[in-house]
C-alpha cells in the first residue's frame, strides 16, 4: 500500500471515529499510531508517540497560551468586561441600536486583553445580554451580538489560536500576533456597523427606550483605562522587540493580577476560579496540540501534504480560486468540529499549498483564523453560539438566525483581507 493511500484511509478512519463521537484528539492519535505503524514500523511508531506526546507540550513558544488565557480570565473575574460595556454605553446610548453596538465594541475592547474567544463571549453573555433585553432588544439579536463579539477574542491579540498557527507553521509568533490587530479592529468596526444597520432596518429588534447612563464621559474612561494600558505594554513590548511573546503573556497576566488585587476587585474565589479555568482550558488545547504533533508526523510520512501541494500546483488554477476553495473546505469542516481541531489538522496540509502559490505565511495565518471564526458562529456546530445560548438560555435557533447578517459582515472582512493583504502585513512589517 502506498503511503498516500494509507494517508487517505487514515482520513476515512478519522471521520469514522469522529462520527462515533470519539474525542477529536484521541481519534487523531489513534489514526496516527496505526498509520505510522503501517508506513514505518510498529516499534518506531510507538516510540515516536511517546516522544511527541512529551515534546508537543514541552514547548517554550506555546507557554504563552496558558498565560494569555489566564490574563483574560483574571480580568474577566475582576469585572473588566462589565466595565468596558458600561463605558461604551455612555458614549453610544443615543444611537439607535446603541446597546447592540456597545456590546460589540466592548467585546473588541475585552478581546484586546483576552486570549480566548469563549472567555469574551461568556463575559458578554453575562454582562450585556440581560441589559439589552431589559431595554427591549430582541433576545436573538442580544445573544448574537455576544457570540459574534466573542469571535473577536480570537482575532485581536492576545490570541491563543494565532499563537498556535505560528507554532504549527514556524512563522514568527510576534509577527502573527501583531498582524491580528488591524484586521481585528476593522472586523470589529464592520460588525458594529452591521449591528447598527440591522436595527435601522428592523427597528422592532432594537429599542426606543434607552436611558441616559448615570456616568459622565470622564468617569467612563476611568473605568476602562486598564485595557489600553495592558494592551500597550504587552503588544507594544512585542512591537518594539522588548518582549518575546511569552514575556508579553507573562507581563499581561501579571498586570491583570496586580490590577485585580490593587483595586480589590479580584476576590480569592475569583482568582482560584480563573486559575482553575485556565488550567482546564489549556489542558484541553494542549491535548489537541499533542495529538496534532503525533498526527503531523503521520501526515508527513504519508506524503499527503506534498501530494496535495503538487496536485494544486499542477491545476494551474488562479490563486484566488485556491484560497476560495480553502475557505469552502474550512467552512464545511466548521460544521464538523471546532476551530482548534481544524487548525491543527488542516494547517500542515494547506499551509505548504498557500506558500507554494507565493502567499505570505503571516497573512494566511490571520486569514485562516478569520475563516475559522466564521465557522464558530455558523450552524450546525457554531461552538460559540452554543456557549452563549447555554449561558443566556436563549433558544439556539433564534441565536443562529440572528447571526446571519454578522456572518455576511465577517465574509466581507475576509474578502477585504484577501483583496488588500496590506491590512494584515503592514503592522508586523513596521515592527522593530
Amino acid at each position: 500500500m502506498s503511503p498516500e493511500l494509507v494517508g487517505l484511509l487514515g482520513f476515512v478512519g478519522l471521520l469514522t471515529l469522529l462520527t462515533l463521537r470519539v474525542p477529536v484528539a484521541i481519534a487523531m492519535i489513534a489514526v496516527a499510531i496505526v498509520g505510522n505503524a503501517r508506513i514505518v514500523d510498529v516499534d518506531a511508531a510507538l516510540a515516536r508517540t511517546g516522544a511527541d506526546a512529551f515534546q508537543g507540550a514541552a514547548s517554550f513558544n506555546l507557554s504563552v497560551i496558558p498565560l494569555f488565557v489566564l490574563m483574560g480570565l483574571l480580568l474577566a473575574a475582576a469585572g473588566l468586561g462589565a466595565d468596558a460595556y458600561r463605558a461604551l454605553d455612555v458614549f453610544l446610548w443615543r444611537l439607535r441600536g446603541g446597546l447592540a453596538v456597545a456590546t460589540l465594541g466592548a467585546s473588541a475592547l475585552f478581546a484586546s486583553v483576552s486570549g480566548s474567544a469563549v472567555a469574551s463571549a461568556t463575559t458578554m453573555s453575562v454582562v450585556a445580554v440581560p441589559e439589552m433585553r431589559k431595554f427591549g432588544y430582541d433576545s436573538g439579536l442580544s445573544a448574537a451580538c455576544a457570540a459574534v463579539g466573542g469571535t473577536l477574542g480570537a482575532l485581536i491579540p492576545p490570541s491563543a489560536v494565532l499563537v498556535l498557527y505560528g507554532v504549527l507553521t514556524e512563522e514568527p509568533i510576534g509577527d502573527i500576533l501583531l498582524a491580528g490587530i488591524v484586521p481585528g479592529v476593522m472586523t470589529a468596526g464592520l460588525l458594529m456597523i452591521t449591528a447598527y444597520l440591522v436595527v435601522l432596518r428592523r427597528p422592532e429588534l432594537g429599542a426606543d427606550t434607552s436611558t441616559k447612563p448615570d456616568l459622565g464621559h470622564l468617569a467612563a474612561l476611568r473605568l476602562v483605562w486598564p485595557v489600553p494600558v495592558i494592551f500597550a505594554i504587552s503588544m507594544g513590548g512585542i512591537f518594539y522587540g522588548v518582549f518575546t511573546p511569552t514575556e508579553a503573556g507573562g507581563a499581561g497576566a501579571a498586570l491583570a493580577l496586580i490590577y485585580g488585587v490593587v483595586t480589590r476587585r479580584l476576590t480569592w474565589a475569583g482568582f482560584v476560579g480563573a486559575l482553575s479555568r485556565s488550567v482546564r482550558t489549556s489542558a484541553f488545547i494542549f491535548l489537541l496540540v499533542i495529538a496534532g504533533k503525533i498526527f503531523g508526523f503521520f501526515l508527513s510520512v504519508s506524503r499527503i501534504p506534498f501530494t496535495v501541494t503538487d496536485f494544486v500546483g499542477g491545476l494551474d488554477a488562479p490563486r484566488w480560486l485556491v484560497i476560495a476553495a480553502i475557505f469552502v473546505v474550512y467552512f464545511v469542516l466548521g460544521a464538523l468540529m471546532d476551530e482548534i481541531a481544524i487548525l491543527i489538522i488542516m494547517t500542515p496540509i494547506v499551509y505548504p499549498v498557500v506558500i507554494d502559490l507565493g502567499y505570505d505565511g503571516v497573512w494566511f495565518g490571520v486569514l485562516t483564523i478569520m475563516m475559522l471564526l466564521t465557522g464558530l458562529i455558523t450552524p450546525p456546530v457554531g461552538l460559540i453560539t452554543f456557549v452563549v445560548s447555554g449561558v443566556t438560555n436563549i433558544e439556539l435557533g433564534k441565536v443562529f438566525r440572528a447571526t446571519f447578517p454578522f456572518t455576511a459582515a465577517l465574509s466581507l472582512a475576509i474578502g477585504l483581507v484577501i483583496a488588500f493583504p496590506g491590512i494584515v502585513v503592514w503592522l508586523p512589517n513596521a515592527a522593530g
Partner: protein
Amino acid sequence: MLRRVVGSIRFLNRVGHYFAGAALLAMLALTVVDIVGRSLFNSPLSGTVEVTPLLLVVVVYLGFAHAEHQGDHVSVDLVYTRVGPRAQRVADLVARSVSLVVLGVVTWQLWRYAGVQEAGGYTTAVLEWEIHWFVRIAALGAALLWLATLVEIVAVVARLDRQVSAGPLTPGGGLREGSAP
C-alpha cells in the same frame, strides 16, 4: 463502595489539578522575575527558557484528568444527536473504550521515553535538571487521564450520576465550554 472509589479518584484528580495551577503560577512568576531582573537589574534569571517548557508539561499533563471529569472534550455531534438514547449509550462506550486504549498506549510510551531520557542522561542545558523526571510526570498525568476516563465509563454504566448520560439537549454532552480560546 463503587461510589466511594469513583469519588476518591475524582478527588485525587482535583488535587492534581491544584498542582497544575501551582505550576502555572510558577511559570508566571518565573517570567515576571526574569523580565524585572533583566530590565531593572540587568541580570536575567538564568534557565527561564529551559524551565518554562518543563513547567508547561506539568500544567498540561496534571490538568488533563480533572478536565476529563469536567467533560472538557470536543467531539462531533453530527450523527450522535440524531439517534436514540440507547445508540448514544453504545456510542459513548465505544468512544470511551477507544480513548482508554489510546491513552493506555500513550502512557506506556511516555514511560518508555522517560527511560530513554534517563539512559541517555539528558539534562537541561543551564541548570542541568534531569529531563526524565518531567517525562515521568507527563506519564503520570496520562495515567491519571486514563483512570479518569475509566471512572467516567463506570459512572455511565452504573448510572452513578445523571448528567453523564444527558441526551441531545446538551450539545457535546455539555462538553464544550472549556474549548475555543
